[in-house]
Protein backbone atom coordinates (compact mmCIF):
# COMPACT_ATOMS: atom_id res chain seq x y z
CA UNK A 1 0.00 0.00 0.00
CA UNK A 2 1.22 3.47 -0.89
CA UNK A 3 -0.54 6.27 0.89
CA UNK A 4 -0.16 9.86 -0.22
CA UNK A 5 -1.14 12.56 2.22
CA UNK A 6 -1.26 16.27 1.49
CA UNK A 7 1.25 16.10 -1.35
CA UNK A 8 2.05 19.51 -2.79
CA UNK A 9 4.85 20.58 -5.06
CA UNK A 10 5.80 23.97 -6.44
CA UNK A 11 8.43 25.17 -8.87
CA UNK A 12 8.98 28.75 -7.81
CA UNK A 13 5.57 30.41 -7.82
CA UNK A 14 3.99 27.71 -9.95
CA UNK A 15 2.19 25.10 -7.88
CA UNK A 16 2.26 21.85 -9.86
CA UNK A 17 0.65 19.49 -7.33
CA UNK A 18 -1.99 20.71 -4.89
CA UNK A 19 -2.68 18.88 -1.66
CA UNK A 20 -3.06 15.39 -3.15
CA UNK A 21 -4.48 12.63 -0.97
CA UNK A 22 -4.62 9.22 -2.58
CA UNK A 23 -4.06 5.55 -1.80
CA UNK A 24 -2.70 2.79 -4.00
CA UNK A 25 -3.47 -0.58 -2.38
CA UNK A 26 -0.92 -3.35 -2.93
CA UNK A 27 -1.26 -5.57 -5.99
CA UNK A 28 -3.24 -3.16 -8.14
CA UNK A 29 -2.56 -1.49 -11.46
CA UNK A 30 -3.35 2.22 -11.38
CA UNK A 31 -3.52 4.54 -14.33
CA UNK A 32 -2.79 8.25 -14.17
CA UNK A 33 -4.08 10.40 -16.98
CA UNK A 34 -3.94 14.11 -17.59
CA UNK A 35 -2.99 16.72 -20.13
CA UNK A 36 0.62 17.60 -20.90
CA UNK A 37 1.94 19.61 -17.99
CA UNK A 38 -0.80 18.45 -15.61
CA UNK A 39 1.86 17.16 -13.19
CA UNK A 40 1.93 13.40 -13.87
CA UNK A 41 5.70 13.10 -14.09
CA UNK A 42 6.19 15.39 -11.10
CA UNK A 43 3.74 13.26 -9.15
CA UNK A 44 5.75 10.15 -10.01
CA UNK A 45 9.06 11.81 -9.20
CA UNK A 46 7.69 12.87 -5.81
CA UNK A 47 6.63 9.29 -5.01
CA UNK A 48 10.06 8.06 -6.08
CA UNK A 49 11.72 10.62 -3.83
CA UNK A 50 13.44 12.39 -6.69
CA UNK A 51 11.73 15.70 -5.88
CA UNK A 52 11.42 17.63 -2.65
CA UNK A 53 7.78 18.12 -1.73
CA UNK A 54 5.34 18.95 1.01
CA UNK A 55 3.18 16.25 2.53
CA UNK A 56 3.90 12.60 3.19
CA UNK A 57 4.27 9.48 1.10
CA UNK A 58 3.79 6.44 3.29
CA UNK A 59 4.20 2.78 2.51
CA UNK A 60 4.00 -0.56 4.28
CA UNK A 61 7.36 -1.44 2.73
CA UNK A 62 10.41 -0.87 4.98
CA UNK A 63 11.91 1.54 2.45
CA UNK A 64 9.75 2.26 -0.58
CA UNK A 65 12.62 3.73 -2.63
CA UNK A 66 14.61 0.53 -2.39
CA UNK A 67 11.80 -1.56 -3.81
CA UNK A 68 10.62 0.85 -6.43
CA UNK A 69 11.36 0.61 -10.13
CA UNK A 70 10.90 3.89 -11.92
CA UNK A 71 10.66 3.98 -15.71
CA UNK A 72 11.09 7.61 -16.69
CA UNK A 73 9.34 9.22 -19.67
CA UNK A 74 12.62 9.78 -21.47
CA UNK A 75 15.18 7.47 -19.94
CA UNK A 76 18.69 8.60 -20.65
CA UNK A 77 21.97 6.83 -20.27
CA UNK A 78 25.54 7.70 -19.54
CA UNK A 79 27.67 7.96 -22.63
CA UNK A 80 29.71 4.97 -23.74
CA UNK A 81 27.91 2.44 -21.59
CA UNK A 82 26.50 -0.62 -23.33
CA UNK A 83 23.02 -1.97 -22.69
CA UNK A 84 24.57 -4.91 -20.82
CA UNK A 85 26.60 -2.62 -18.58
CA UNK A 86 23.53 -0.49 -17.85
CA UNK A 87 21.63 -3.56 -16.71
CA UNK A 88 24.60 -4.60 -14.59
CA UNK A 89 24.64 -1.16 -12.94
CA UNK A 90 20.96 -1.45 -12.04
CA UNK A 91 21.53 -4.90 -10.54
CA UNK A 92 24.63 -3.85 -8.60
CA UNK A 93 22.72 -0.88 -7.22
CA UNK A 94 20.28 -3.30 -5.61
CA UNK A 95 22.92 -5.87 -4.62
CA UNK A 96 21.59 -8.37 -7.15
CA UNK A 97 24.24 -10.72 -8.43
CA UNK A 98 22.84 -11.39 -11.87
CA UNK A 99 24.44 -11.03 -15.26
CA UNK A 100 22.61 -13.55 -17.39
CA UNK A 101 21.04 -10.72 -19.31
CA UNK A 102 21.11 -12.30 -22.75
CA UNK A 103 18.66 -14.97 -21.61
CA UNK A 104 16.37 -12.39 -20.00
CA UNK A 105 16.56 -10.01 -22.96
CA UNK A 106 12.93 -10.44 -23.99
CA UNK A 107 13.03 -7.36 -26.23
CA UNK A 108 16.00 -8.67 -28.25
CA UNK A 109 17.97 -5.53 -27.56
CA UNK A 110 21.54 -5.25 -28.88
CA UNK A 111 23.07 -5.32 -25.41
CA UNK A 112 26.64 -5.07 -26.68
CA UNK A 113 25.94 -1.68 -28.24
CA UNK A 114 26.19 1.67 -26.50
CA UNK A 115 22.81 2.44 -24.95
CA UNK A 116 23.00 6.09 -26.01
CA UNK A 117 22.87 4.97 -29.64
CA UNK A 118 19.57 3.13 -29.13
CA UNK A 119 16.37 4.48 -30.64
CA UNK A 120 13.73 6.05 -28.35
CA UNK A 121 11.76 2.82 -28.12
CA UNK A 122 14.85 0.70 -27.50
CA UNK A 123 15.93 3.03 -24.71
CA UNK A 124 12.55 2.66 -23.09
CA UNK A 125 12.68 -1.12 -23.37
CA UNK A 126 16.19 -1.23 -21.91
CA UNK A 127 15.15 0.95 -18.97
CA UNK A 128 12.07 -1.23 -18.41
CA UNK A 129 14.14 -4.40 -18.58
CA UNK A 130 16.50 -2.88 -16.02
CA UNK A 131 13.82 -2.23 -13.41
CA UNK A 132 12.30 -5.67 -14.03
CA UNK A 133 15.65 -7.32 -13.31
CA UNK A 134 15.73 -5.50 -9.96
CA UNK A 135 12.74 -7.53 -8.69
CA UNK A 136 10.96 -4.48 -7.33
CA UNK A 137 7.68 -4.55 -5.43
CA UNK A 138 6.36 -1.29 -6.84
CA UNK A 139 6.67 -0.06 -10.42
CA UNK A 140 6.12 3.43 -11.73
CA UNK A 141 5.90 3.41 -15.50
CA UNK A 142 5.77 6.90 -16.95
CA UNK A 143 4.41 6.50 -20.47
CA UNK A 144 5.79 3.01 -21.04
CA UNK A 145 4.10 2.61 -24.42
CA UNK A 146 5.41 5.84 -25.86
CA UNK A 147 7.73 5.31 -28.84
CA UNK A 148 7.62 1.54 -28.53
CA UNK A 149 6.73 -0.72 -31.48
CA UNK A 150 3.50 -2.76 -31.60
CA UNK A 151 5.23 -6.04 -30.84
CA UNK A 152 6.85 -4.60 -27.72
CA UNK A 153 3.60 -2.90 -26.74
CA UNK A 154 2.01 -6.33 -26.54
CA UNK A 155 4.93 -7.62 -24.47
CA UNK A 156 4.72 -4.64 -22.10
CA UNK A 157 0.97 -5.23 -21.64
CA UNK A 158 1.67 -8.85 -20.78
CA UNK A 159 4.45 -7.80 -18.39
CA UNK A 160 2.01 -5.53 -16.54
CA UNK A 161 -0.49 -8.39 -16.27
CA UNK A 162 2.26 -10.67 -14.98
CA UNK A 163 3.33 -8.10 -12.39
CA UNK A 164 -0.26 -7.77 -11.22
CA UNK A 165 -0.63 -11.53 -10.94
CA UNK A 166 2.53 -11.57 -8.80
CA UNK A 167 1.00 -9.05 -6.41
CA UNK A 168 3.16 -6.11 -7.47
CA UNK A 169 1.81 -2.56 -7.42
CA UNK A 170 2.00 -0.74 -10.74
CA UNK A 171 1.39 2.94 -11.48
CA UNK A 172 1.19 3.84 -15.15
CA UNK A 173 0.70 7.02 -17.07
CA UNK A 174 -0.20 7.04 -20.72
CA UNK A 175 -1.73 9.32 -23.30
CA UNK A 176 -3.37 6.36 -25.03
CA UNK A 177 -6.52 5.61 -23.08
CA UNK A 178 -6.92 2.06 -24.38
CA UNK A 179 -3.52 1.03 -22.99
CA UNK A 180 -4.75 2.02 -19.55
CA UNK A 181 -8.30 0.71 -19.79
CA UNK A 182 -6.88 -2.67 -20.86
CA UNK A 183 -4.58 -2.91 -17.84
CA UNK A 184 -5.75 -0.78 -14.94
CA UNK A 185 -7.95 -1.44 -11.93
CA UNK A 186 -8.49 2.26 -11.38
CA UNK A 187 -7.73 5.30 -13.51
CA UNK A 188 -7.15 8.66 -11.85
CA UNK A 189 -7.57 11.89 -13.77
CA UNK A 190 -5.06 14.61 -12.86
CA UNK A 191 -6.03 18.14 -13.78
CA UNK A 192 -4.30 21.36 -12.76
CA UNK A 193 -2.33 19.59 -10.05
CA UNK A 194 -5.33 17.83 -8.47
CA UNK A 195 -6.94 14.45 -8.95
CA UNK A 196 -10.43 15.35 -10.06
CA UNK A 197 -11.82 11.93 -10.86
CA UNK A 198 -11.13 8.27 -10.12
CA UNK A 199 -12.82 5.62 -12.21
CA UNK A 200 -13.09 1.84 -11.91
CA UNK A 201 -13.39 -0.50 -14.95
CA UNK A 202 -17.16 -0.04 -15.23
CA UNK A 203 -16.68 3.71 -15.56
CA UNK A 204 -13.78 3.67 -18.04
CA UNK A 205 -16.02 4.07 -21.08
CA UNK A 206 -17.77 7.01 -19.50
CA UNK A 207 -14.44 8.59 -18.50
CA UNK A 208 -13.08 8.16 -22.02
CA UNK A 209 -16.20 9.67 -23.56
CA UNK A 210 -16.06 12.58 -21.15
CA UNK A 211 -12.42 13.22 -21.97
CA UNK A 212 -13.07 13.01 -25.68
CA UNK A 213 -15.89 15.47 -25.35
CA UNK A 214 -13.74 17.81 -23.26
CA UNK A 215 -10.74 17.59 -25.60
CA UNK A 216 -12.45 17.63 -28.96
CA UNK A 217 -15.97 18.98 -28.48
CA UNK A 218 -16.94 20.93 -31.55
CA UNK A 219 -13.41 22.18 -32.16
CA UNK A 220 -12.92 20.08 -35.30
CA UNK A 221 -15.76 21.94 -36.97
CA UNK A 222 -13.51 24.98 -37.01
CA UNK A 223 -11.07 23.14 -39.30
CA UNK A 224 -13.70 22.83 -41.99
CA UNK A 225 -12.38 19.40 -43.06
CA UNK A 226 -14.22 18.09 -46.15
Amino acid at each position, binding site marked *: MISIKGLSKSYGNKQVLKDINLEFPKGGVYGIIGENGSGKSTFFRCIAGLE*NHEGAILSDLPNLKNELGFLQTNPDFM*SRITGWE*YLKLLCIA*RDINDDDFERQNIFDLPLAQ*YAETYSTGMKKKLALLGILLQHNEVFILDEPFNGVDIHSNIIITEIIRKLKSCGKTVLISSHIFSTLSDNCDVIHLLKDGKFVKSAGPDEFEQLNAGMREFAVGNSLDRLNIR
Partner: protein
Amino acid sequence: MPDFADFVEKGDEKPASFASDDNFAAGLLKTGSPKCYMNMKNYFVLQFRRIERKLTEAGIHPFPGILLAGVAFVAISAYLFSRTAAADWIYALLGFFVILKLGDANRNDLLRSIFKRKDYYLIRVQENIITALPFILYLVYERTYLMATGLFLISIPLAAINTRQLWRFTIPTPFRKFPFEFIAGTRKAFWLILAACFLTLKSIQVENFNLGVFSLALLFFITLSYYFKPERAYFVWIYSANAKGFLRKKISTALICSSILTIPVLVMLCMVFPENIPIITGVQMAGYIFLISMVLAKYSAFPYEMNIPQAVLYSLCLWFPPALLIVIPIFFVQAQKRLNPILE
Protein backbone atom coordinates in the same frame (compact mmCIF):
# COMPACT_ATOMS: atom_id res chain seq x y z
CA MET B 1 25.18 39.50 -33.04
CA PRO B 2 23.49 36.12 -32.50
CA ASP B 3 24.95 33.89 -29.85
CA PHE B 4 26.80 31.54 -32.11
CA ALA B 5 29.07 30.39 -29.30
CA ASP B 6 26.21 29.03 -27.23
CA PHE B 7 24.75 27.56 -30.34
CA VAL B 8 27.92 25.62 -31.06
CA GLU B 9 28.42 24.66 -27.45
CA LYS B 10 24.95 23.38 -26.78
CA GLY B 11 24.42 21.76 -30.14
CA ASP B 12 20.82 22.92 -30.10
CA GLU B 13 18.80 23.76 -33.11
CA LYS B 14 19.71 26.92 -34.88
CA PRO B 15 18.27 29.85 -32.87
CA ALA B 16 15.80 31.99 -34.72
CA SER B 17 17.93 35.09 -34.31
CA PHE B 18 20.86 33.29 -35.83
CA ALA B 19 18.89 31.81 -38.67
CA SER B 20 17.55 35.21 -39.56
CA ASP B 21 20.93 36.88 -39.62
CA ASP B 22 21.01 37.94 -43.26
CA ASN B 23 24.69 38.78 -43.26
CA PHE B 24 25.61 35.40 -41.98
CA ALA B 25 23.33 33.57 -44.38
CA ALA B 26 24.62 35.62 -47.32
CA GLY B 27 28.16 34.70 -46.39
CA LEU B 28 27.33 31.04 -46.67
CA LEU B 29 26.01 31.34 -50.16
CA LYS B 30 29.33 31.39 -51.89
CA THR B 31 32.33 29.46 -50.67
CA GLY B 32 35.40 31.63 -50.50
CA SER B 33 33.45 34.88 -50.67
CA PRO B 34 34.73 37.76 -48.47
CA LYS B 35 31.63 37.41 -46.31
CA CYS B 36 32.35 33.75 -45.88
CA TYR B 37 35.84 34.54 -44.60
CA MET B 38 34.34 37.16 -42.32
CA ASN B 39 32.12 34.48 -40.85
CA MET B 40 35.07 32.18 -40.40
CA LYS B 41 36.85 35.01 -38.63
CA ASN B 42 33.73 35.56 -36.52
CA TYR B 43 33.81 31.91 -35.61
CA PHE B 44 37.29 32.18 -34.14
CA VAL B 45 36.51 35.49 -32.42
CA LEU B 46 33.51 33.83 -30.82
CA GLN B 47 35.58 30.86 -29.70
CA PHE B 48 37.85 33.35 -27.98
CA ARG B 49 34.80 34.99 -26.40
CA ARG B 50 33.69 31.60 -25.10
CA ILE B 51 37.01 31.20 -23.33
CA GLU B 52 36.63 34.70 -21.90
CA ARG B 53 33.11 33.90 -20.69
CA LYS B 54 34.19 30.65 -19.07
CA LEU B 55 36.96 32.44 -17.20
CA THR B 56 34.57 35.20 -16.12
CA GLU B 57 32.02 32.64 -14.93
CA ALA B 58 34.78 31.00 -12.91
CA GLY B 59 35.43 34.36 -11.26
CA ILE B 60 38.73 34.99 -13.08
CA HIS B 61 39.31 38.15 -15.12
CA PRO B 62 40.04 37.05 -18.71
CA PHE B 63 43.29 38.97 -19.23
CA PRO B 64 45.21 37.76 -16.15
CA GLY B 65 43.49 34.38 -16.57
CA ILE B 66 44.86 33.88 -20.09
CA LEU B 67 48.22 35.30 -19.06
CA LEU B 68 48.37 32.96 -16.10
CA ALA B 69 47.41 29.98 -18.27
CA GLY B 70 50.24 30.88 -20.67
CA VAL B 71 52.77 31.17 -17.84
CA ALA B 72 51.55 27.89 -16.33
CA PHE B 73 51.86 26.18 -19.72
CA VAL B 74 55.45 27.32 -20.14
CA ALA B 75 56.31 26.48 -16.51
CA ILE B 76 54.85 22.95 -16.73
CA SER B 77 56.54 22.43 -20.10
CA ALA B 78 59.91 23.54 -18.72
CA TYR B 79 59.44 21.27 -15.71
CA LEU B 80 58.52 18.32 -17.92
CA PHE B 81 61.52 18.79 -20.18
CA SER B 82 63.83 19.13 -17.19
CA ARG B 83 62.54 15.92 -15.60
CA THR B 84 62.41 13.41 -18.42
CA ALA B 85 64.22 12.68 -21.64
CA ALA B 86 60.99 11.54 -23.27
CA ALA B 87 59.28 14.90 -22.78
CA ASP B 88 59.09 15.46 -26.53
CA TRP B 89 57.09 12.25 -26.90
CA ILE B 90 54.78 13.19 -24.03
CA TYR B 91 54.37 16.62 -25.50
CA ALA B 92 53.60 15.44 -29.00
CA LEU B 93 51.09 12.90 -27.67
CA LEU B 94 49.41 15.51 -25.48
CA GLY B 95 49.10 17.83 -28.46
CA PHE B 96 47.72 14.98 -30.53
CA PHE B 97 44.99 14.18 -27.99
CA VAL B 98 44.03 17.79 -27.51
CA ILE B 99 43.56 18.11 -31.28
CA LEU B 100 41.66 14.84 -31.40
CA LYS B 101 39.20 16.29 -28.86
CA LEU B 102 38.23 18.92 -31.42
CA GLY B 103 37.00 16.15 -33.69
CA ASP B 104 33.99 15.53 -31.44
CA ALA B 105 31.06 14.55 -33.61
CA ASN B 106 28.43 16.69 -31.91
CA ARG B 107 30.15 19.99 -32.51
CA ASN B 108 31.38 19.01 -35.93
CA ASP B 109 27.97 17.90 -37.16
CA LEU B 110 26.74 21.35 -36.31
CA LEU B 111 29.66 23.07 -38.04
CA ARG B 112 29.12 20.92 -41.11
CA SER B 113 25.48 21.92 -41.23
CA ILE B 114 26.39 25.61 -41.07
CA PHE B 115 29.45 25.92 -43.29
CA LYS B 116 30.11 24.81 -46.81
CA ARG B 117 32.21 21.67 -47.06
CA LYS B 118 35.41 23.48 -48.07
CA ASP B 119 34.97 26.18 -45.42
CA TYR B 120 34.28 23.57 -42.80
CA TYR B 121 37.59 21.84 -43.50
CA LEU B 122 39.39 25.19 -43.61
CA ILE B 123 38.01 26.04 -40.18
CA ARG B 124 38.88 22.64 -38.79
CA VAL B 125 42.45 22.75 -40.13
CA GLN B 126 42.98 26.26 -38.75
CA GLU B 127 41.43 25.26 -35.46
CA ASN B 128 43.72 22.25 -35.17
CA ILE B 129 46.82 24.25 -36.03
CA ILE B 130 45.94 27.03 -33.56
CA THR B 131 45.41 24.42 -30.85
CA ALA B 132 48.65 22.61 -31.66
CA LEU B 133 50.63 25.85 -31.92
CA PRO B 134 51.66 26.22 -28.24
CA PHE B 135 52.92 22.62 -28.28
CA ILE B 136 54.69 23.09 -31.63
CA LEU B 137 56.34 26.34 -30.52
CA TYR B 138 57.62 24.81 -27.34
CA LEU B 139 58.92 21.76 -29.23
CA VAL B 140 60.72 24.15 -31.60
CA TYR B 141 62.11 26.04 -28.60
CA GLU B 142 63.44 22.75 -27.26
CA ARG B 143 64.91 22.04 -30.72
CA THR B 144 62.92 18.85 -31.19
CA TYR B 145 62.15 19.78 -34.78
CA LEU B 146 61.09 16.31 -35.87
CA MET B 147 58.33 16.13 -33.25
CA ALA B 148 57.25 19.71 -33.95
CA THR B 149 56.97 18.99 -37.68
CA GLY B 150 55.19 15.70 -37.02
CA LEU B 151 52.62 17.36 -34.77
CA PHE B 152 52.08 20.13 -37.30
CA LEU B 153 51.61 17.68 -40.15
CA ILE B 154 49.27 15.38 -38.23
CA SER B 155 47.04 18.29 -37.19
CA ILE B 156 45.98 18.77 -40.83
CA PRO B 157 44.55 15.31 -41.66
CA LEU B 158 43.02 15.17 -38.18
CA ALA B 159 40.58 17.84 -39.39
CA ALA B 160 38.84 15.08 -41.31
CA ILE B 161 38.45 12.86 -38.27
CA ASN B 162 35.04 12.63 -36.69
CA THR B 163 35.50 11.02 -33.28
CA ARG B 164 32.04 9.49 -33.28
CA GLN B 165 33.29 7.26 -36.07
CA LEU B 166 35.93 6.03 -33.66
CA TRP B 167 33.48 4.97 -30.97
CA ARG B 168 30.77 3.50 -33.15
CA PHE B 169 32.25 0.18 -32.16
CA THR B 170 32.29 -0.86 -28.53
CA ILE B 171 35.74 -0.54 -27.02
CA PRO B 172 36.23 -3.52 -24.70
CA THR B 173 37.32 -2.78 -21.14
CA PRO B 174 38.20 -5.06 -18.22
CA PHE B 175 35.67 -3.21 -16.05
CA ARG B 176 32.52 -4.72 -17.53
CA LYS B 177 31.30 -5.95 -14.17
CA PHE B 178 32.02 -2.68 -12.38
CA PRO B 179 29.85 -0.03 -14.02
CA PHE B 180 30.04 2.75 -14.75
CA GLU B 181 32.77 5.36 -14.18
CA PHE B 182 35.76 3.31 -15.27
CA ILE B 183 33.96 1.79 -18.25
CA ALA B 184 32.85 5.13 -19.68
CA GLY B 185 36.03 6.93 -18.61
CA THR B 186 38.37 4.36 -20.11
CA ARG B 187 36.50 4.47 -23.40
CA LYS B 188 36.66 8.26 -23.48
CA ALA B 189 40.35 8.38 -22.50
CA PHE B 190 41.30 5.26 -24.44
CA TRP B 191 44.10 6.98 -26.36
CA LEU B 192 45.47 8.62 -23.28
CA ILE B 193 45.69 5.27 -21.48
CA LEU B 194 47.48 3.78 -24.46
CA ALA B 195 49.87 6.73 -24.33
CA ALA B 196 50.55 6.16 -20.62
CA CYS B 197 51.25 2.48 -21.28
CA PHE B 198 53.51 3.44 -24.15
CA LEU B 199 55.44 5.72 -21.79
CA THR B 200 55.81 2.86 -19.32
CA LEU B 201 57.31 0.66 -22.01
CA LYS B 202 59.50 3.51 -23.19
CA SER B 203 60.73 4.07 -19.61
CA ILE B 204 61.66 0.40 -19.39
CA GLN B 205 63.36 0.49 -22.78
CA VAL B 206 65.49 3.54 -21.95
CA GLU B 207 65.71 2.62 -18.24
CA ASN B 208 64.31 5.97 -17.20
CA PHE B 209 62.78 5.58 -13.76
CA ASN B 210 61.28 9.08 -13.65
CA LEU B 211 59.41 8.46 -16.87
CA GLY B 212 58.10 5.17 -15.49
CA VAL B 213 56.81 6.82 -12.33
CA PHE B 214 55.33 9.61 -14.43
CA SER B 215 53.42 7.07 -16.52
CA LEU B 216 52.02 5.45 -13.37
CA ALA B 217 50.99 8.83 -11.98
CA LEU B 218 49.50 9.74 -15.36
CA LEU B 219 47.30 6.64 -15.23
CA PHE B 220 45.96 7.76 -11.86
CA PHE B 221 45.42 11.29 -13.13
CA ILE B 222 43.40 9.87 -16.02
CA THR B 223 41.22 7.91 -13.60
CA LEU B 224 40.63 11.07 -11.53
CA SER B 225 39.10 12.65 -14.62
CA TYR B 226 36.41 9.94 -14.65
CA TYR B 227 34.90 11.63 -11.61
CA PHE B 228 34.81 15.22 -12.81
CA LYS B 229 31.22 15.24 -14.02
CA PRO B 230 28.30 14.17 -11.84
CA GLU B 231 25.84 11.61 -13.17
CA ARG B 232 22.11 12.28 -13.15
CA ALA B 233 20.45 11.96 -9.75
CA TYR B 234 18.52 8.93 -11.00
CA PHE B 235 21.74 6.91 -11.16
CA VAL B 236 22.37 7.60 -7.50
CA TRP B 237 18.74 7.17 -6.51
CA ILE B 238 18.71 3.57 -7.86
CA TYR B 239 21.05 2.43 -5.09
CA SER B 240 19.47 0.66 -2.14
CA ALA B 241 22.04 2.00 0.30
CA ASN B 242 22.39 4.96 2.59
CA ALA B 243 24.90 7.69 1.80
CA LYS B 244 27.67 5.94 3.72
CA GLY B 245 27.04 2.61 2.02
CA PHE B 246 26.81 4.26 -1.38
CA LEU B 247 30.13 6.04 -0.92
CA ARG B 248 31.70 2.81 0.30
CA LYS B 249 30.51 1.04 -2.86
CA LYS B 250 31.76 3.81 -5.12
CA ILE B 251 35.15 3.94 -3.40
CA SER B 252 35.64 0.17 -3.45
CA THR B 253 34.72 0.06 -7.16
CA ALA B 254 37.19 2.88 -7.83
CA LEU B 255 39.95 1.05 -5.95
CA ILE B 256 39.31 -2.29 -7.66
CA CYS B 257 39.17 -0.76 -11.13
CA SER B 258 42.19 1.48 -10.62
CA SER B 259 44.12 -1.56 -9.40
CA ILE B 260 43.15 -3.51 -12.52
CA LEU B 261 44.43 -0.62 -14.59
CA THR B 262 47.63 0.23 -12.74
CA ILE B 263 48.92 -2.98 -11.16
CA PRO B 264 50.44 -4.34 -14.40
CA VAL B 265 52.38 -1.07 -14.72
CA LEU B 266 53.31 -1.18 -11.03
CA VAL B 267 54.59 -4.76 -11.32
CA MET B 268 56.61 -3.99 -14.45
CA LEU B 269 58.22 -0.94 -12.83
CA CYS B 270 59.01 -2.88 -9.66
CA MET B 271 60.67 -5.60 -11.70
CA VAL B 272 62.77 -3.20 -13.77
CA PHE B 273 63.58 -0.73 -10.99
CA PRO B 274 63.74 -2.95 -7.86
CA GLU B 275 65.86 -0.39 -5.99
CA ASN B 276 62.98 2.08 -6.25
CA ILE B 277 60.14 -0.18 -5.08
CA PRO B 278 59.35 2.05 -2.06
CA ILE B 279 58.90 5.09 -4.34
CA ILE B 280 56.82 3.15 -6.86
CA THR B 281 54.50 1.71 -4.21
CA GLY B 282 54.35 5.16 -2.59
CA VAL B 283 53.08 6.64 -5.87
CA GLN B 284 50.54 3.82 -6.12
CA MET B 285 49.28 4.50 -2.58
CA ALA B 286 49.15 8.24 -3.22
CA GLY B 287 47.16 7.49 -6.37
CA TYR B 288 44.62 5.50 -4.35
CA ILE B 289 44.27 8.27 -1.78
CA PHE B 290 43.78 10.94 -4.45
CA LEU B 291 41.22 8.73 -6.15
CA ILE B 292 39.26 8.28 -2.92
CA SER B 293 39.33 12.00 -2.29
CA MET B 294 38.17 12.62 -5.87
CA VAL B 295 35.17 10.32 -5.45
CA LEU B 296 34.27 12.14 -2.23
CA ALA B 297 34.87 15.54 -3.83
CA LYS B 298 32.52 14.66 -6.68
CA TYR B 299 29.67 13.73 -4.37
CA SER B 300 30.36 16.61 -1.99
CA ALA B 301 28.94 18.89 -4.67
CA PHE B 302 26.35 16.48 -6.04
CA PRO B 303 24.16 16.88 -8.09
CA TYR B 304 26.26 19.81 -9.32
CA GLU B 305 29.80 19.86 -10.60
CA MET B 306 32.53 20.67 -8.13
CA ASN B 307 32.47 24.39 -7.37
CA ILE B 308 35.49 26.65 -7.18
CA PRO B 309 36.17 26.32 -3.40
CA GLN B 310 36.05 22.53 -3.71
CA ALA B 311 38.29 22.55 -6.77
CA VAL B 312 40.73 24.88 -5.00
CA LEU B 313 40.71 22.62 -1.97
CA TYR B 314 41.42 19.62 -4.17
CA SER B 315 44.17 21.43 -6.10
CA LEU B 316 45.74 22.39 -2.80
CA CYS B 317 46.01 18.70 -1.97
CA LEU B 318 47.75 17.99 -5.27
CA TRP B 319 50.45 20.48 -4.29
CA PHE B 320 50.45 19.62 -0.60
CA PRO B 321 49.23 16.02 -0.15
CA PRO B 322 49.20 16.07 3.70
CA ALA B 323 46.23 18.45 3.39
CA LEU B 324 44.24 15.37 2.34
CA LEU B 325 44.07 14.39 6.02
CA ILE B 326 41.84 17.40 6.59
CA VAL B 327 40.17 17.58 3.19
CA ILE B 328 38.99 13.96 2.97
CA PRO B 329 36.83 14.15 6.12
CA ILE B 330 35.42 17.50 4.95
CA PHE B 331 34.47 16.04 1.57
CA PHE B 332 33.04 12.95 3.24
CA VAL B 333 30.72 14.94 5.51
CA GLN B 334 29.63 17.19 2.64
CA ALA B 335 29.03 14.18 0.38
CA GLN B 336 26.84 12.53 3.02
CA LYS B 337 24.79 15.72 3.35
CA ARG B 338 24.35 15.93 -0.42
CA LEU B 339 23.44 12.27 -0.87
CA ASN B 340 21.10 11.78 2.07
CA PRO B 341 18.09 13.51 0.48
CA ILE B 342 18.40 11.29 -2.60
CA LEU B 343 19.14 8.00 -0.92
CA GLU B 344 16.97 8.07 2.19
